[in-house]
């Protein structure tokens, strides 16, 4: 089984919702569609499912052109953000429903339902009604129903978005294991970089209906080919500094530095230096570290970490600190970035420099 999109475009009136996307998704792979709201994730999934048809381009399942085939003509299963279950049916019957439609025999249905329930840890709940379940259990029921069909292609559209974060944490941990046992083409849409990283597999970064980059997830995260991919694949967003290299010097934020070390790998010109929040620290850890000073706007505390928002007009930086930090809004702080942790993107947004140490 493979799912191939060839130069797929979809226009709705004057609006281009999907703009010339080509993707080749192989059997047994997990493919994350990563992008902000309205980046085209759901539109693309609807084209894959056959719920919508492309204005141009082809959709190919297992070498067969299904571009004009409706949903029923494709072997797909979908899981949505809202948990959708039949309220009047037990968990067992909810999971069994696609198999009953397919008229499988009773013993086979029973075997498959129990197998899916086992995989999703719903074993003890088969007799209950959806309303008696927690949100996480309801969504697990919806996922079990999608898996039990053994569709060639399973599409999941932000399936964890409506769950509270502890349930999200648990299901995220389980999903790769569930995918590994299946063998279908999995497509999973999310807005969250950390979710993409946890799921692994491949990631397609989408922005404004276009495919920015597609590749193994860790590689896209560490070597974003374009600044747009770097920004989407960063939460909080990448910090940016406008910089220019000329005459062997780096100019940025009113500072002038000799362009040695990593900067020697750049040619002359304008760049955006970019770095993730966890590389901006409050201690000078290397001799070449660059100081970025500003005032604290707010400390967002997640529990085990704090995101410190720093105003340094015209820039705004976010630094990640371990533990709880309570800098008062307005307090002055010095933050430090090691040049080895910097990305640089040229004036066209293309990657010109990436950290060499496998971090980023």
């Amino acid at each position, binding site marked *: 089984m493979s799912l191939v999109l060839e130069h797929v475009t979809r226009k709705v009136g004057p609006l281009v919702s999907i703009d010339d996307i080509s993707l080749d998704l192989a059997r047994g792979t997990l493919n994350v569609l990563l992008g902000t*709201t309205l980046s085209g994730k759901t539109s693309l999934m609807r084209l894959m499912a056959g719920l919508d048809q492309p204005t141009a381009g082809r959709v190919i399942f297992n070498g067969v052109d299904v571009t004009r085939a409706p949903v029923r003509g494709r072997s797909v299963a979908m899981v949505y953000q809202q948990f959708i279950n039949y309220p009047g049916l037990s968990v067992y019957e909810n999971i069994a429903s696609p198999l009953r439609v397919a008229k499988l025999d009773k013993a086979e249905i029973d075997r498959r339902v129990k197998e899916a329930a086992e995989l999703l840890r719903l074993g003890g709940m088969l007799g209950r009604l959806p309303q008696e379940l927690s949100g996480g259990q309801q969504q697990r029921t919806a996922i079990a129903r999608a898996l039990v069909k053994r569709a060639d292609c399973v599409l999941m559209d932000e399936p964890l978005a409506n769950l509270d974060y502890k349930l999200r944490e648990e299901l995220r941990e389980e999903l790769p294991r569930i995918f590994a046992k299946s063998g279908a083409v999995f497509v999973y849409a999310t807005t969250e970089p950390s979710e993409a*990283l946890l799921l692994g597999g491949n990631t397609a970064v989408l922005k404004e209906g276009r495919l920015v980059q597609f590749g193994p997830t860790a590689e896209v995260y560490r070597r974003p080919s374009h600044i747009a991919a770097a920004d989407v694949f960063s939460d909080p967003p990448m910090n940016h500094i406008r910089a220019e290299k000329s005459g062997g010097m780096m100019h940025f934020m009113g500072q002038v530095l000799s362009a040695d070390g990593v900067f020697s790998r750049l040619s002359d010109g304008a760049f955006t230096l970019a770095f993730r*929040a966890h590389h901006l620290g409050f201690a000078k850890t290397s001799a070449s570290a660059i100081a970025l000073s500003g005032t604290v706007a707010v400390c967002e505390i997640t529990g085990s970490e704090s995101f410190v928002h720093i105003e340094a007009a015209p820039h705004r930086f976010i630094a990640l600190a371990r*533990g709880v930090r309570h800098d008062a809004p307005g307090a002055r702080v010095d933050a430090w970035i090691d040049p080895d942790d910097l990305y640089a993107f040229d004036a066209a947004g293309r990657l010109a420099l990436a950290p060499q*140490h*496998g*971090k980023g």
Partner: protein
Amino acid sequence: MARITLSALAHAYRPNPSAPADYAVREATHVWENGGAYALLGPSGCGKTSLLNIISGLVTPTRGRVLFDDQDVTQLPTERRNIAQVFQFPVIYDTMSVRENLAFPLINRGLRGAAVQARVEEIARLLDLSRDLDRKARGLSADSKQKISLGRGLVRPDVAAILFDEPLTVIDPHLKWELRSKLKEIHKTFDTTMIYVTHDQTEALTFADQVVVMLEGEVVQVGTPQALFEAPDHTFVGYFIGSPGMNILPARIENGHAEIGKARLALGRDPVLPPHAKIEIGIRPEFMRPAAPGEAGLEVSCQRVEDIGRHRILRGVCDGQKLAAILPEGAAMPPEVLRMSADAAHIHVYADSRRVR
């Protein structure tokens, strides 16, 4: 502005409650100081919204009293409690301008003239709404509308408290920090008692000086964000705050050590344990470290390592229990079986889920 006292307060939605599980809010007394920023945090169904509704007057408690300073308001309806409320969805008049929306609560109370305008402009400045003052509210973005709701709450200078019920639900994730920062600033400027209900730990910990963690109708800890992270009073707080949550392992405590299966960890103290209690230890994944040479440690079999970018999470099993440890970014793959430990200060002891000092 007021100190809020909940005195021997309990609430049940069903008649004739008897067992603890019959109560949406179990009996407790709390005093929330004037000018404090409090967050009520917990999973859905924990009772946090019930508690907020009792304070706002939407719900009359089954037992106990609600005091604003020394005034008993238990039986007073919402409109006589002099509080401001901000809900999940913006509550504004779409056809009015931003200025008219902000002035409305003052006009409604019979105020007129220059004082109203001055106050409206002050609030608009604080919320970065000055440029939009004469625009209709209808065309504004969700975050601007929510700022207007907030402004309508702040504009009356004499409110006893401002209550927030998941106010950032409809705000785009990328804009949330701005409103969080605004809320902080506002709390600092106005010194009003603020109570904020959320299921989102980041929101609670960012907003509040004191976080009230609830579970099944019971307040299990009231503490600073730091206290909730470093010294959770209840295993639920350890689990709920932090990602991944705290490792909880069944243990025996003896001679200043915790025994977990065959392994021993030094505690450097002998906590006094209640008899017949279920004893566990808790260690945050952030404080797990490789055991030093010669140090007894936990034998952890590594099942997988998750790379989440800024660090890695080792998922393992120790004595049949799941265990997580944070490894630095770029850390080498650990061996299949490794010995891990933690400093005594980061090992907490729990008896029947409650921390024993």
